[in-house]
């Protein structure tokens, strides 16, 4: 064996020993996660990956600066967050969660959340309709749903009824029922058909489908991928996307697309966006402080501007022109219980 080879071997065996020691230490850490989690000054927030940007850019810097504590944001999907809480019951590592309202209902039913109002002072200044199930969760923003229209092709629609006008033959795009904003169209259709208050209209699906079928001649398509819908809208092939989320539509407008989002006079709905305290989660006081900051007027104003959503704190003025926009509450328990049957019915009655 030549000298360099022997040296190299010795060197590599040293490396191997070092590696072994390191991996043993690593395994020790993995085997005792509670120790790592119990380390102070780091709080884990579970949320959606779509909320990662504003969380990292606005929320976390503001909180870390104020409380001198590190926040880790785990961006995934609502159902994954639910699963994390279910699996770790008794030794939760998430302090708070941001999830869709329907998933919150399940989490409440399984005893995974703890009420907010007493520990979150700013919850007192929230607008009506954004605190749910006696404060189990609150909406931190209201991404509202309107009619996105191509400004080169038509004037602002004043009412949800306008899309039924025959002059828009095959120019209207609807979201499919797989998309949450599509479900809201059923409520609007039922409301237009029956004239009942929105809360009652949400229960009358016969009226909803009867009305929505009247829109068939005007339908260009129903989308599952919103990117395609905006593409068609911006090219002028479609005139309106009927049920368009402010966060998406106004972000595209801000990038120069010839579109605008109309807020119809009948009022509208907002996309689910709840935040809640995890029951028996670590650092409950810090978690409450985080939500309190999130609901504070300063942060609310920043978040609303960044996401084109409505603030939920009543002290923060709504964007210009939207101060009178009514956001109707949605009975999410009703949606969760019936959505699958609505989708089946949609397939049959709205098919080409």
């Amino acid at each position, binding site marked *: 064996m030549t000298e360099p080879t022997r040296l190299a071997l010795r060197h590599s065996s040293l490396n191997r020993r070092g590696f072994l020691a390191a991996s043993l230490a690593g395994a020790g850490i993995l085997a005792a996660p509670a120790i790592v989690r119990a380390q102070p000054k780091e709080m884990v927030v579970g949320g959606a990956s779509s909320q990662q940007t504003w969380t990292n850019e606005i929320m976390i810097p503001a909180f870390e600066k104020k409380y001198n504590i590190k926040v880790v944001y785990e961006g995934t999907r609502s159902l994954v967050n639910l699963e994390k809480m279910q699996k770790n019951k008794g030794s939760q590592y998430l302090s708070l969660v941001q999830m869709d309202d329907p998933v919150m209902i399940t989490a409440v039913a399984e005893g995974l959340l703890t009420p907010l109002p007493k520990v979150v002072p700013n919850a007192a200044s929230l607008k009506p309709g954004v605190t749910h199930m006696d404060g189990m969760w609150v909406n931190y923003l209201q991404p509202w749903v309107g009619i996105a229209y191509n400004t080169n092709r038509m004037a602002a629609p004043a009412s949800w009824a306008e899309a039924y006008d025959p002059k828009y033959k*095959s120019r209207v795009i609807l979201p*499919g*029922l*797989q998309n949450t904003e599509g479900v809201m169209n059923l409520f609007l259709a039922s409301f237009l058909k029956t004239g009942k208050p929105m809360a009652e209209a949400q229960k009358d699906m016969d009226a909803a489908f009867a009305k929505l079928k009247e829109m068939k001649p005007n*339908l*260009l*398509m*129903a*989308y*599952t*991928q919103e990117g*395609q819908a905006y*593409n*068609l809208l911006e*090219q002028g*092939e479609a005139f309106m996307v009927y049920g368009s989320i402010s966060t998406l539509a106004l972000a595209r407008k801000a990038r120069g697309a010839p579109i605008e989002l109309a807020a119809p006079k009948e009022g509208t709905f907002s996309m689910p966006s709840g935040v809640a305290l995890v029951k028996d989660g670590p650092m409950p006081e810090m978690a409450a402080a985080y939500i309190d900051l999130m609901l504070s007027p300063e942060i609310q104003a920043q978040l609303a501007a960044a996401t084109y959503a409505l603030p939920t704190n009543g002290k923060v003025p709504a964007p210009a022109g939207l101060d009178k926009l009514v956001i109707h509450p949605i009975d999410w328990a009703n949606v969760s219980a019936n959505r*699958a049957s609505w*989708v089946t019915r949609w*397939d*049959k009655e*709205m*098919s*080409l």
Partner: protein
Amino acid sequence: MKLRFDPVLLLALPAAIYMVIVFAIPVVVLVARGFMGADGFTLSNYSSFLSEPFNWVVIGNTLRVAFWTTVVCLALGYPTAVALARSKGAVQVAMLIAIILPLSVGVVVKTFAWQIVLRRDGIVAAILVATGVWDEPKLLLFTEHGLVMGAANVFLPFMILPIYSVLKLADPNLQDAAATLGAPPVFRFFNVALPLAMPGIVGGVSIVFSLATSMYVIPSLLIGDRFQTLATLTGRAFLLMRNEALGATTATILLFLAVAIVACSALLSRGKGDSR
């Protein structure tokens, strides 16, 4: 005759192991799931699916679109394959590149391009109006016609290449020989050219048909949520409704249709092969 083990067969072993793990086992699990009820084995998933008239519409949609896609691919692909087999040198290379290169463009990109082509102010509508076929621009996008056009574009190479690979092995002199013996063109086509090409045609048809029955991205982008096929219904059952029993049922029916088509065409091509 005693069957002797050929060690060369072992070369297929890595692929076989891989496919068993990533394909065979999941398929068995999937198929089994469709026959599972609350208390063991059941046919109720199938009986409830097939007793719903709308689901027959879905099966009809799937087969009809796949059929027309295959017809268009065959009508365009067969002459192309003949020309390709006849061509020589640089022309043949250019043709092959033109056929194979589009395969490297993703389906999503292609489908988005079709969205532009099939628009009311798109090029297809412009041509049809200019040639007087249409009085005014009509909508092709989000119709079955548009879907078939787009799908045929994506799957065309899978029709051309099998036919070409068979034709290039056929002796071109056979055509001339038949002509010398006094066979008129139509007779030559049906009795010489077509039987020679048949294994390739059967192969192309089975590939295109099974691809077209199971396509998912193309219909969701070219016709949208209002036209359900077995593939889109399967996707929705798993991803949105979390109804595994329904998803397993539709997926198994789809699998059955695809396997039936491949099996039938294998039988057909074997019959043709023997008669040669």
